[in-house]
């Protein structure tokens, strides 16, 4: 049950977007550029993984499920394996570059000032470009916004993780601009 009367019963950010269409537009445009734009050397799966990881750190159930399911879809990886990666990033078998970028995203989650030169250097050493470091920080920062918006207004979320996994293939096709909020 949301803290305010959203005048709809849609879950998570979809309820907020139906309540406030004029803010939904720039929020969706931002998600589209950050997570789906093709002019990017990070894959859509890697970018969704960053969003899911930050949502997991922020304990935002709805955003974590949506974006973990999308990451799993793009990366052809069951969400159970992604859970294990989030649980122990250091021990995971992820490629060094994405691992270093996820470490930076984790720092951004605690606060922008937590990012250090050493971590940025480590990411570069692992092959990350300036643009990839930039995008990681911005995606992590954006999810610190989305997560707070969703949880700060007390929106509800389907508890069954299968709901999100089943929706992910269609969500991957539709993207964040041309989709029906009510479906």
């Amino acid at each position: 049950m949301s803290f305010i009367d959203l005048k709809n019963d849609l879950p998570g950010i979809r309820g907020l977007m139906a309540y406030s269409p004029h803010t939904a537009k720039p929020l969706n445009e931002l998600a589209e550029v950050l997570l789906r734009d093709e002019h990017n050397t990070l894959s859509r799966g890697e970018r969704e993984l960053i969003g899911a990881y930050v949502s997991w750190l922020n304990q935002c159930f709805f955003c974590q499920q949506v974006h973990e399911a999308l990451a799993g879809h793009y990366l052809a990886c069951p969400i159970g394996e992604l859970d294990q990666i989030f649980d122990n990033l250091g021990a995971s078998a992820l490629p060094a570059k994405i691992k270093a970028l996820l470490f930076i995203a984790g720092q951004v989650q605690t606060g922008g000032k937590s990012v250090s030169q050493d971590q940025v250097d480590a990411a570069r050493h692992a092959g990350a470009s300036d643009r990839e470091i930039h995008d990681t920080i911005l995606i992590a920062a954006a999810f610190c916004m989305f997560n707070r918006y969703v949880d700060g207004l007390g929106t509800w979320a389907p508890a069954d993780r299968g709901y999100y996994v089943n929706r992910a293939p269609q969500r991957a096709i539709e993207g964040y601009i041309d989709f029906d909020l009510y479906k």
Partner: protein
Amino acid sequence: MAYIPLDESIPGIRSLLAYFPAIEPAMKGLMQTMMRQDRGLNKGERELIAAWVSHHNHCTACENIHGAVASHLLGWDEADYARMIKEKAGASPRLEALLALARQVTCNGKKVTPEQIAKAKALGCTDQEIHDTILIASMFCMFNRYIDGLGLTSRDTPESLKTRAQHLAEYGYGT
């Protein structure tokens, strides 16, 4: 020095928009929509929430400019602003309740409690005002992290801040 090659002579987040122009329409759209209207919360109150969140995120660059815009719009001098940020001095009970919500959002969205929401509503805050407070607070949790996460430093002087604040207060974020 920023962690990536940015033109730091361009003030504030504009140097980031220059680096990554693809996000400019979304960022400006968000700022114009949320910061430049007087329905419910007025522009000065919106800027104050932005400054308040930036203050608690220790993002000096954002606090300085949005604090200056808020002060300009609310007719405050530096001492008035400092008292507000430190002690919420001069805030109406309604604004105080909204600042308390924004403070919780700064920590995590989950920290907002039904009791706090009930208190804000009892003091006359509308659903729209509560929505806008939480979204503005969330937005600045993004902007603060974007700026500080990239190690961007401000070259503003007290004079340049004043000029920029006056311009933003008058013309907004669309230009």
